[in-house]
């Protein structure tokens, strides 16, 4: 199946297939499945149309996705109302804040690559050691260069592509 230009293998579990996206790993894939209500062992070919739409909508702009309703935790001294009355909707206590929704802040594919390139360009522009090492195609964090360092030679560029 093709999703936003990325090919997801039909026979794979969705939670594994989502890792085809640059910027989505184990954890994010699981959380994403939970968010769009896809069960753990669902395979890509078993996705229905609404799930595909939900996935596409979320991944095309995670920041603009609708916020999820998070239920605040009950305080330790919570006393439930008697069964005869309707349950009141949960409300935030004084000074209580809902945790930030980190799943909406993810960046994938070209956005993430652009961010990475901007970070390297920033280091290069201010002339820091990290920026210099990128420009020289050498390891940045003190690794040896007498041998090995092949990954750095391949990847460390000011205009890094991957």
């Amino acid at each position, binding site marked *: 199946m093709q999703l936003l230009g990325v090919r997801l293998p039909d026979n794979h579990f969705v939670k594994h297939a989502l890792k085809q996206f640059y910027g989505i790993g184990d954890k994010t894939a699981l959380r994403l499945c939970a968010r769009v209500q896809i069960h753990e062992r669902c395979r890509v070919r078993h996705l229905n149309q609404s799930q595909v739409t939900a996935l596409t909508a979320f991944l095309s702009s995670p920041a603009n996705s609708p916020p999820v309703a998070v239920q605040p935790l009950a305080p330790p001294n919570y006393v439930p109302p008697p069964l005869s009355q309707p349950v009141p909707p949960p409300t935030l206590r004084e000074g209580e804040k809902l945790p930030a929704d980190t799943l909406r802040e993810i960046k994938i594919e070209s956005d993430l690559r652009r961010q990475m390139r901007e*970070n390297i360009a*920033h280091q290069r*522009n*201010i*002339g*820091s*050691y*990290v920026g*210099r090492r990128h420009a020289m195609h050498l390891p940045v964090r003190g690794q040896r260069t007498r041998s090995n360092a092949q990954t750095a030679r391949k990847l460390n560029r000011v205009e890094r592509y991957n």
Partner: protein
Amino acid sequence: MLPTAVVQGGRSAWKGPFFVAFPNLRQALENNIPIKTQARSCTILPNFIGLRFMVHNGKDYIPVTVTQDMVGHKLGEFAITRKRFTYKATKNK
């Protein structure tokens, strides 16, 4: 600018950034005198902008002019400590 070193650097937030108090900060800013320092691990704070530093690299002092973008980095990042290898042919052989 990247998120500040307080957030990124693996250092407890309650401690704040590590920095060295330079006693002659205001004087240096007014008279444009470079501050000679060996404190490479000192974080560049927003009030350092425009200052000139002479940062020690283990051998001598490298001039560093602090700009807006450098805030949150360390002084030592701008004074390299390694010398590029260059082959020199021996004269007397």
